[in-house]
Structure formats: structure tokens, C-alpha cells
């Protein structure tokens, strides 16, 4: 399959892995954070940990939009959908994320009209097809998905579709990285930069990480070879004591980002003064809301929102895992009370959540005793 197989070519992968071993040597320990949940998923799915030398430690970052959403927001969204004739539309990732009264899927089983959509425009299509109902799109995601929500809202406004609204949970990546770097218990050498977010925001917004924090960052693709090459690029910088922003994912990411997408976002959204992140607390200017010119399509303005704040279960250590301070299996609930089937934290739900990825692909592998006989 084109554009996929080239980046999974065994010979190139083993050559690149060899190069990594040579560059990494044995004397120094490298801690690299992959910011994006898509990278976390790829690391486990392709078994990249088996390929990397032991002194390269990958730390999972906060870039999983489902995972960072506090439980109160899910309750708020579902409370709108409790009202008669409301259809709750969301991406599949959201469906098993628990609120205090259960996940959207559990609400669906009890009769709520919950639909999985693959894009915001599919939710708008639902609104066109169901003129006697109100379709609320529960929007999540970083700058990756925000432009398509913006374009959908622009279309709803242009077409005058009034039975449609967005419950906006879009968040922005840079303040999250800043919060990670502010965290006193975090020691990182470098970042593997998010690929999809950067298709929209480009590479410039990361320059302060290199210039002010002196940490190299390489914006990376999601195939095994992309990620290994990004590690090579980071090692080159680290060995020379450099800190620059580099773009490994040039085939997709333009340095300046996608201007049309950024314009659409600016037309529809404005920054919230602050927003609560699961496990990380309130982060200023880290999320988007709809502008007043779109108030008619803003679920938070059209409906009465309880504004529920729910504290995470005390024993759950989602915040520490989100910030990369703890590995998934070091959480007290991991694999016992909290499993992909009965998730307590959202990190165990989304395929991009580090707990689910670790549980699905790594956990039982680690438990199987004599794996050496298989390799």
C-alpha cells in the first residue's frame, strides 16, 4: 500500500535502528517525550520499544484529546443530550469515556440518542436529515480537528441550519507543553513533536522550546520509520549540544502551517481565559470557545449547562501519567480496577491514551515470562 509500506520497510528500519544504537552509545540516558497520543499508539502498535536501545526512554505526553478532558465536561455534554429531541453526536473515541453516570455508550443503551460520527460535517448532515431534532456535536481535539469544526460551523451559519450546535472542548497544544515543562518533577531531554497538529499550526510555535528551554524538538510522522528517523535527528542534536526545531514530517507538515485552516479557526473561535485539564488542573489560554457571532450554534450558550466539576477518583493517577511522571503500569489502579473494558480514567479508553496502548500491546507481553524464546 503506497505511502504506508515504504515507511515500514524492514531493511530500512533495521538500518535506522542500528544507527540509533550507534548514536545513543551506552553512557548516557535519553528521555524523550512524544507529545502526541498518535505517536504513543504507534510506539506500542509497531513494537518500537523492542527496537530502541534501553537507554532511550520514551515518555508519553498529554496529546490525547479524550484523555485530557475532565469528567465534568462529559457530564455537562450529556446533560444537554438528556433533553428531549436532542441527538448527541461525537467521534467514536468519546463513546466509552466514563462520566459520573456512565459513558455516552451506556447512556445510549438506556435510550439516549447517541451517534458516532467521523467528522463534524457528518453531524451537520444529521441535523439536515433530522429537522425536528437538535443535533449537538461534542467537539474534541487539538488544532488537528478544530479547523473542521470551524468550517462546519461556518457552513451551518451560511446555510442557516439552526437545529445544530457544538459543545466545544477544543484545546491547544502549546500551553500543555508549557505546563509539562513547568512541572518540577519532569526531566526531559527532547521532544518528538506532534505531526497532525503541526499540519495546522506549522513548526514556528515550537521555537521557544528550542531557544528558551534549550530542548530539541523534531516534528514527526507516525510510521515506524518516521519515528525512528526522528529519534536519529534528536540524537544528532543532543550529541552536539544543539537545540533546534526540525521537521521530519515534511511530506505533510508545512513549516508555516495551514493558513486557510488557521483563518477558519480565527473566524469561529476565541481563546478561553483558562480551561481545566484532567490531572493537570487549570491551564490559561489552553482551550477554545465559540465567538459571540456564533452564539446561536454554541451549545454552552443555547442550553443550561450545569458546569459540573468532578474530581477524579483519588486512587487514579491520570495526571501523573499524562504528564509523563509515572508510567501507566505504575498507577495503583492499572490493570486491576482500571482496564480497557472498565476504564476509570480516559487514558485507558482512547487508542491514543497511553494506558490503553500499554495495556493492549505491552502489559501482558511484559507479564509473559520467557519472551526471549520468541524473538
Amino acid at each position, binding site marked *: 500500500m503506497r505511502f504506508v509500506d515504504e515507511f515500514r520497510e524492514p531493511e530500512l528500519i533495521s538500518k535506522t535502528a542500528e544507527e540509533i544504537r550507534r548514536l545513543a552509545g551506552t553512557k548516557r540516558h535519553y528521555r524523550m517525550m512524544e507529545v502526541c497520543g498518535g505517536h504513543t499508539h504507534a510506539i506500542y502498535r509497531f513494537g518500537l520499544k523492542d527496537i530502541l536501545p534501553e537507554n532511550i526512554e520514551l515518555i508519553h505526553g498529554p496529546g490525547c484529546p479524550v484523555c485530557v478532558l475532565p469528567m465534568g465536561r462529559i457530564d455537562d455534554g450529556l446533560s444537554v443530550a438528556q433533553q428531549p429531541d436532542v441527538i448527541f453526536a461525537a467521534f467514536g473515541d468519546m463513546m466509552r469515556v466514563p462520566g459520573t453516570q456512565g459513558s455516552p455508550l451506556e447512556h445510549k443503551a438506556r435510550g439516549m440518542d447517541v451517534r458516532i460520527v467521523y467528522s463534524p460535517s457528518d453531524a451537520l448532515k444529521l441535523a439536515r436529515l433530522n429537522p425536528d431534532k437538535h443535533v449537538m456535536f461534542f467537539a474534541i481535539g487539538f488544532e488537528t480537528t478544530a479547523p473542521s469544526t470551524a468550517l462546519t460551523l461556518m457552513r451551518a451559519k451560511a446555510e442557516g441550519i439552526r437545529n445544530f450546535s457544538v459543545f466545544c472542548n477544543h484545546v491547544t497544544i502549546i500551553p500543555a507543553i508549557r505546563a509539562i515543562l513547568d512541572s518540577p518533577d519532569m526531566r526531559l531531554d527532547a521532544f518528538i513533536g506532534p505531526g497532525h497538529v503541526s499540519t495546522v499550526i506549522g513548526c514556528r510555535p515550537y521555537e521557544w522550546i528550542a531557544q528558551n528551554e534549550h530542548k530539541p524538538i523534531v516534528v514527526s510522522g507516525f510510521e515506524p520509520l518516521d519515528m525512528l528517523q526522528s529519534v536519529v535527528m534528536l540524537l544528532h542534536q543532543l550529541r552536539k549540544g544543539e537545540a533546534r526545531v526540525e521537521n521530519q514530517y515534511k511530506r505533510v507538515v508545512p513549516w508555516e502551517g495551514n493558513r486557510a485552516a488557521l483563518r477558519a479557526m480565527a473566524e469561529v473561535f476565541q481563546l478561553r481565559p483558562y480551561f481545566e485539564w484532567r490531572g493537570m488542573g487549570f491551564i490559561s489560554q489552553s482551550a477554545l470557545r465559540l465567538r459571540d457571532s456564533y452564539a446561536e450554534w454554541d451549545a454552552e450558550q443555547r442550553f443550561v449547562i450545569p458546569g459540573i466539576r468532578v474530581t477524579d477518583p483519588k486512587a487514579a493517577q491520570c495526571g501523573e501519567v499524562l504528564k509523563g511522571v509515572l508510567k501507566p503500569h505504575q498507577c495503583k489502579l492499572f490493570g486491576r480496577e482500571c482496564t480497557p473494558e472498565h476504564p476509570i480514567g480516559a487514558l485507558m479508553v482512547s487508542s491514543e491514551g497511553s494506558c490503553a496502548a500499554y495495556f493492549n500491546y505491552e502489559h501482558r507481553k511484559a507479564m509473559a515470562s*520467557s519472551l526471549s524464546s520468541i524473538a
Partner: protein
Amino acid sequence: MSAPATIPAESAPIRFRDTQIEMAHGAGGKASRRLVEGLFAPLLFGNATGPLGDAAHIDIGGAKVAITTDSFVVKPLTFPGGSIGELAVNGTVNDLAVSGAKAEALVVTYVLEAGLPTSLLEAEVRAMARAASAAGVRIAGGDTKVVEHGKADQMYITTSGIGRPLRGVTIDPSAVRPGDKVLLSGPIGDHGITILLARGELDLEADLRSDTRSVLPLVEALVNAAGPGIRWMRDPTRGGVATSLNELARDCGLGVVLLEDQIPVRDAVRGACELLGLDPLHIANEGQFLAVMAPEYADAAINALAMMPGGGEAQVIGEIREQPAGSVLVTTLYGGSRIIDMLVGDPLPRIC
């Protein structure tokens, strides 16, 4: 879902703790297994602890028969390569086939929604007649129920079948040994992805057809060529290959190690899975089967299948190892590996 015959126990322990039924309980994955093992088995199958196969083999006064049942709620009713009527015949014929039996007769139940156009019903009855004739099985009787408009989605079909055990083959997960080979009859994921695309909810198109078919001719060819070497068979429908092999791993307490590049997957299926974040190993099939073979029979098995129409893409996709006990490990050409679990949740509801 079938089990050895024993007398049900009133006081059997119920381990099923979920407070309500959700779509996942019908998805064929972990939740389904929990429901069957935790509620149905202890109350209905007399607390049978043996592994649950695709069909039950029972002894009626010295005559050995295999019996099974399956319901079909697929949406939409027709899709490229097949329709609910064909699935309803082939599904039950296949459950019997992979339990080592040849379907002899089916009975059928229709649950119809008031308002269903007769033309739709007639088309599906004709499809069933054609599929039964192709599979060489008789439809011996049936029942019809109608529910109010809006209380069912057009049409559900249940088929139950009895079959004659094939001579020279015994399906028994406890006979599986380290070193045995895992064989797959052809490319995976065609059915699940075809249904997903046929719903038209995604703006995705692909030249893809459901793989629904009777696998009985292939199973018979396998039994004739390599019967004594067959340890276990299963048709990987809901939950896909990953779920079937996880069940095997748990039932036999051994590890299943797959070689990713040996697993046949069409580009259209791979592409759709890449886009949607699905794993082809979790996608349903309706015309494929898995077999675990003693290693010395593996070549004969592949050759026998290759001589049959529709058997040319059969492959050895992995083998049984001591470790990782109870799990399925997928290894890649470049040395990475991952554990693949049963299907959790229900990414693609109502595919059969």
C-alpha cells in the same frame, strides 16, 4: 455457542455483574464471553467448564449429531457480495463445519417488522434458498413472528442447524501442542469493512465484497487431506481472527504467535483500517476459517486447500508456542512485537 450436555444446576454461581446489556455484549468479544460464561453457561449448560465451541456435539441414543444456532441482525440487509438471507444459511453451515460436522438440515425463524415490503422478504427468502442449495443443506421448517413497526429493524433471521460429524477429525483445544501451525483460509476483514462502507455513513468507497460463503467444501478438503492433523478450527466472525485466537490461547493455556506479514489482508481493507484506526485482526469475516494443524500436516493442508476454488490464498500465519501463555503475540518483520487482545467494545455494531 454450545456446550457439552449436562443437567443445569439451580444454585450455579452467576459471575456476570454488568448492570445492563450493551452493544458490546453482542459484539463477539470480551463482553460477549463474559455474558456467556458468567450467566448463560452456569444457568443453562449445567456449569459446564469445558471450552465453548461453535456447535455442540451430542449423542442421541447412540447417534452422534452436531447442533448449533445463530441469529442475524445485519444492517443494511443487502451489501456487496451478499445479504442477510445468505449470511443466515452460511453462518450456521460454517459453525457446524468448523466444529467438524456437515450441515444436514436447518430450521429458520423470521422476526419481521410490520410494514416490511414483501419484495424485501421475498428477495431474502430466495437468497436463503440459493445459499442452502449451494451449501447442500435442506431447510426443514421454520417460524414467523411480526412485531409492531418501529420495534424491530426490518428483519431478523435465526437459523438452527443439525449436522453429521465428519469422519476422521476431532476438534479439541486441549490437543493443541507447542509447534503446531496456525492456518488461515484466506484474506481477512472483507465482510466487516464491506458492511461498514455499505452503510454509507463514511464518505469512503472501495471495490470490496463480503466474503460470505459456505466453508464446508474447504473444510471437507482439509479433513480428507490432513484430518488426523487437525486439532482445532474456528470461523473468525465477530471479533475477528484476534478474538478467535485469544479464545484458543485461553482454552489451551498456550501462546499463539502470528507473523504479521504472513496474514493476508486486501489493500482496500488495510487502507480502510488505517484510516479508521481499526485492526484487520479485529474485523469480522463470514467466509474464512482458522485451523491449528500438527506441523507435519501443514503442507498437505495448504496444498489441499490450494486445489479448491476459493482456497488459493490459504496461508500458515503463525504457530503455537509455550509463551506468552494464554495470549496472542503478533511479530513484525523488523523485530517489533505486540500483544493483541480480544475485541473490546463494539466498533462496528450489527455486522451479521
